């Protein structure tokens, strides 16, 4: 399936390669570079490139191209999804999946790649299992390692692979047992010039941080599960229970993971929490820029971390603006205006106005740039989704000759946090 993997940084250097079958010369990447030259931006490179003997499938993340080389028919999504999983694993291990992190930890990276694929077919991709095979680096251990000269490999071989809960490692023990759930909802919207909604949609995820001893079995129920229209689950969730009772019942992986992602039915009207009143006009040699932001349907919550970005047309030379609140920057190379508004005070609406100067001689642009908005609202899920309760069954008190330790029931600390933020929120002007 996946024959080889090349990692290419933004400068075009192939800084790491790994082959799972026979070795493929790195010259195969020339086809990729050819394709890359044609594209305007790094994102624009076609993810699937066909060459005479190989097929190159790549993803672009963290400013690195991960180029997988295949020689035979394979579902492209299979490869893409796997590559993303690889980067996720790196991020999980090193804090970020960027080039420097990979270079610093090349041995671990190499070992990880070795474990994740065998003969081009995925072997172990669950982070919990991988972490048992290969310990993630941390500062303390690095210090210890330099002193003692040991590395990050697990000293003892794990048994977890055989557990029938493949995503959870066995023998987890914490002194502080805690389970946190973050319900994060993102509003995707397209708002037209008049302020009416062209398209709005709520996508949500529940991210968890579960640190519980033993094999806890959790049940999470919602007050109003019916608003979830389409869901996708972490493999740990018992689909049957969800179908029958609309509760999430699962044995969680250890640590951070995404429990479900969901989509809220489009028949529900989406409450748009902010409005943007843009007034942008161009004329010969210059133009006016005047944008006001205000809260709309916020259910009494404060709209925070509002950031407004606007990619101006190429002919814009500079902008001279005055904000009533926050700071603004204009990048004259990328032509991107960023206005960091901060909190919106309903009494005094933030406003940014001023002049635009255009390149002399060039005609004023015909269309106005779209504005994209970022914001956050704490303690609110815009769809109205509410977690009802979380129950735990952590009984591990069976005496089995192999596992002699027993846990008594413990009371975990539980917490649910709600957050609404802008996803792909765009205002056409």
């Amino acid at each position, binding site marked *: 399936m996946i024959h080889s993997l090349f990692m290419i940084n933004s400068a075009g250097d192939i800084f790491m*390669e790994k082959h799972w079958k026979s070795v493929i010369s790195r010259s195969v990447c020339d086809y990729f570079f050819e394709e890359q030259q044609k594209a305007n931006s790094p994102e624009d490179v076609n993810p699937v490139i066909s060459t005479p003997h190989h097929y190159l499938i790549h993803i672009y993340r963290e400013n690195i191209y991960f180029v997988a080389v295949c020689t035979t028919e394979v579902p492209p999504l299979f490869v893409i999804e796997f590559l993303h999983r690889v980067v996720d694993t790196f991020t999980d291990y090193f804090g970020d999946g960027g080039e420097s992190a990979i270079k610093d930890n090349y041995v671990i990276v190499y070992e990880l790649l070795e474990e994740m694929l065998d003969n081009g077919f995925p072997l172990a991709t669950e982070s919990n299992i991988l972490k048992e095979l290969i310990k993630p680096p941390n500062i303390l251990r690095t210090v210890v390692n330099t002193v003692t000269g040991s590395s990050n490999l697990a000293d003892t071989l794990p048994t977890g692979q055989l557990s029938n809960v493949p995503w959870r490692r066995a023998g987890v023990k914490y002194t502080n047992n805690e389970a946190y759930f973050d319900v994060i909802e993102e509003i995707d919207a397209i708002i037209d010039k008049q302020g009416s909604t062209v398209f709005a949609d709520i996508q949500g995820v529940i991210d968890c941080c579960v640190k519980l001893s033993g094999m806890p079995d959790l049940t999470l129920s919602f007050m109003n599960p019916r608003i979830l229209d389409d869901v996708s689950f972490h493999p740990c969730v018992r689909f049957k229970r969800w179908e029958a009772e609309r509760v999430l019942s699962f044995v969680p992986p250890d640590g951070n993971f995404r429990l479900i992602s969901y989509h809220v039915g489009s028949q529900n009207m989406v409450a748009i929490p902010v409005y943007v009143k843009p007034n942008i006009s161009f004329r010969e040699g210059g133009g006016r820029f005047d944008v006001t932001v205000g809260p709309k349907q916020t259910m009494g919550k404060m709209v925070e971390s509002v950031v407004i970005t606007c990619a101006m047309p190429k002919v814009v030379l500079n902008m001279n603006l005055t904000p009533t609140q926050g700071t603004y920057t204009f990048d004259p190379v990328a032509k991107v205006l960023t206005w960091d508004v901060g909190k919106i005070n309903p009494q005094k609406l933030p406003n940014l106005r001023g002049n635009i100067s255009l390149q002399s001689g060039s005609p004023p642009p015909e269309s106005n740039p779209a504005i994209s908005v970022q914001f956050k609202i704490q303690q609110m899920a815009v769809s109205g989704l509410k977690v009802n309760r979380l129950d735990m069954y952590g009984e591990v008190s069976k005496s089995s000759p192999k596992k002699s330790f027993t846990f008594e029931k413990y009371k975990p600390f539980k917490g649910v946090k709600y957050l609404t933020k802008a996803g792909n929120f765009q205002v056409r002007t």
Partner: protein
Amino acid sequence: MSNGGGSYNAQNDSRAGSTGEPDLGTEPTGGFFSADYKKHDDLKQMLDSNKDNLKLEAMKRIVGMVAKGKDASDLFAAVVKNVVSKNIEVKKLVYVYLVRYAEEQQDLALLSIATFQRALKDPNQLIRASALRVLSSIRVPVIVPIMMLALKDSVVDMSPYVRKTAAHAIPKLYSLDPEQKDQLIQVIEKLLADKTTLVVGSAVMAFEELCPDRVDLIHKNYRKLCNLLVDVEEWGQVVIINMLTRYARTQFLDPNQQDVIADEDKNFYGDEDEKDSEEEEEDEEKEKTPPKKPYMMDPDHRLLLRNTKPLLQSRNAAVVMAVAQLYHHIAPKSEVGLVAKALVRLLRSHREIQHVVLSNVATLTTIRKGMFEPYLKSFFVRPSDPIHVRTLKLEILTNLATETSISTILREFQTYVTSSDKDFVAATIQAIGRCASSISEVTETCLNGLVGLLSNRNEYVVAESVVVIKKLLQMQPDSHSEIIQHMAKLADTITVPMARASILWMVGEYSDRVPKIAPDLLRKMAKNFINEEDIVKLQILNLAAKLCITNPKQTKLLCQYVLNLAKYDQNYDIRDRARFIRQLVSPAGEKGALGKHAKKIFLASKPAPVLDSSFKDRDQWQLGSLSHMINQQASGYSPLPDFPAAAPDPTVRNVEVPMPWAEKTHKKKAGKPKKEAFYSDEEEESESESDSEESSSSSSESGSESESEDDSKSESGSDKDKKSDEEAESSSSSSSESESSSESESDSESESEPDTKPQKKAPPPKTKSSTKPKKEAKQEVSLLDLDDIDVSSTSAPVPAPASALDVLSPSLASDLQGLSINDKTDTAISVTTPMFVSTTSHELLHRMTGEGLSANYRFTRGTCIYSTSMVPVELTFTNHTDSPVSNIRIGDKKLQAGMTLQEFPEIPSLPGGGSMSVSIGIDFKDTIQPANFQICTQDRKYNVSIKPPVGELFQAVTMAEADFTAQQSKLTGMNENSGKVSIPSQHNNSKTITARMSELANVAPVPSSQDGIYRFAGKTVSGGTLLLITVKVGEDNSASITVNCELMAICSMLVKEVKQKLSLA
């Protein structure tokens, strides 16, 4: 076997590549050659030292070199020595190195083989597995026989992890020595029969690489694969689904081919229930196999569709896509729609995933328009999308355009046209053109819009518009002369060659509509002829020729002039064209035979271009495949076969040992497209960490350590240790969930009676069906009838156990005997007739609101005639007026998601004063959500709603007391609810309590051996969830009530109601 050949070639290729590689590797370091050499020297020293940390440091640096693609092959000898290192870390890195370079230094690599052979016998499964992995990864042909031996050993290894690695080794071995194919296929056959979820994915992968056309290997495993699918790891799922798609295309009939015939007598089999029962009655069906009967979906075909459906909810995009393509290729038309939602969900994912999904959606939209129409807005373009995603979205929007949605789409397109990305604008304009051509209603509007764009300041926009307008006008050239005029004028300003060419062509073609402008245009063009692009020159020639024919007076000379210019053009196409035209239009001598027909030749009416989706032809590829993405055949792609005309023998999929209970479990399970986790729900309570681990091994193989412990324990102390019994129970029930437990154990000798007994005895509440056959095994005749009533639609006569016994393996036979003996003591849970049927009816429609028509409903507590998951409700209509009410029927239904309502046949007329009863069935899905619907008469509609009392959601079942307590012990914790109540003394007797309880809910009393304890059992109609009620009457008339049920909401409601009921004076 293009696949195998391909990979072999590829290997040769790359081997060639790798020999060239060292040069490449050393080249950049050439400048530091001496330094590099030294460096290697000290690496060698470090490797030779006897300190582990030095070795490790050296290995790390070497791996770094390998990772950067630098050549480190000269260190081979030094490294390979360390393969015997005790240090795991060093060892691992040596493995990495070995796999990379062994091919180049085969002789030296052989030194390491002995170490691996030893490691293959290691007690630690991970060491065994990694030894096998490395051994099979070093591509040294000499060791093929050794690898083959190791492989054969590993396939029967007791650790599934080792077996998985063995599956991965198969393609490696095959690419090394294709002559081993036959032997390897035998190995694959063994692996395919494996029951462990960990292994099957990799086994199918090996199958796909080696022998994808050996369908005969799949037959026996087909049902197992379908049933295990949800529990296989994600990557295996993708491979299995793809393989099963192809399998289904060779084994089943096309579900869509006979739509027409199907309509004729729909009543017979159109009913879903009917279909279900058909599936169950597999054996029967086999006997009658009607060759020429209308299409009936093969039960195995249905099984596949059902078991893949929950995977649409997977977090892995590849799995979702795989299911989508499966549905697209083998599902009946009506069911394909349900994948749309999942595909749209994927659009939120990474941009690369978006790209692939969108291009597949684009293909789908060319064939199945309606499927994505509701999600139209999800395909709206955002400024942040990369260009390839935008183009695909445009494509999809265009494909989706219909009369109703076109206005939205066009409005959207209008905003795109103002984008600053010119390529995108051009693509949008073409999309508008396609919409205009496909939907005649908007052609005019689009044309006007495009003409408006002609005055755009951006030249590309104008040019693109011109090209598109040209195409549109060609379809309906009448009455658009003013547009042509307008465009002719544009020729002065516009510089884009394609647009100029289009204008010229158009003016030439319709010169009769602009008789004055055309010659003038030609004059202008002639002036500038030499500076034009080739494509424009050709069109000038065309224009000249056409005008010369239609209007020779004015243009003859001009035409000569242009032809002369062209005669000396640099481009020979143009010279050729000029010569050709000259002969036709103005020959030197007299007009030839062709010249006479010049007009016909040049001014023939041309067919309008068809603007088709560029994805139209992609349908030939299997959806989601690489070939589909690149629109050409990828190596190793095998096209999906067409459905066979006649279905091959379905019996090949039967497993030799027809295990009635196993079969039944599957069937019943499959009825609900639900994920069956590794462990059943009951486990939550009864299972500990340790045995949850064990259950996997028990389901797979009886050999693994933990399992044998478990076995021995239950063997030795089966009665003394109730807990361990329970443990075995739950683990075995969990295995029976996902696969046929007994099947999986069939070859295990260590299996003993005490061990199997609880397995059969304690049915988990939900898998009621799994117990039923067992009961049948005991008293086939008497219970079969009951069975037919109870699950009329899902149950089927089961082969008599006697016949089953004939073919059973000895150990199984003993299992079965043990089972029947044990069964004497316990009775399974079976549905029984209700104890009490209420005669009071509730009002549905008052006669005042109903304008003389009233309706009442009553819960009859019988078995619903429509479906077993429905609660039967009797509706009584009474006409209080004098005149008859006609056409009484059920109108719009507003039901909660998942709920279904089976209507009654329309009452044609209800005479004045008359009344009539009909029955309907409602599947409440075990909730007390009201079912809202409308009752319609000929001219009126009334909104009504039926809210079920909680007690009506149940069916009474009978069970033994022992069963009851066993079940109860599983439903503890959250699933238990209790309360206290005092019963008035005059009612504190068994009769009243029983009567009251059965009045309250459709439950049956369980015979109790203790005084003062009353037990009642029931199960929910829709989900089959068990309900257990215990009333313990203590002294002074106080009673404690305990209700156990998995549905917590129902649990608490029932407690409340029982309290109320019992405390009634």
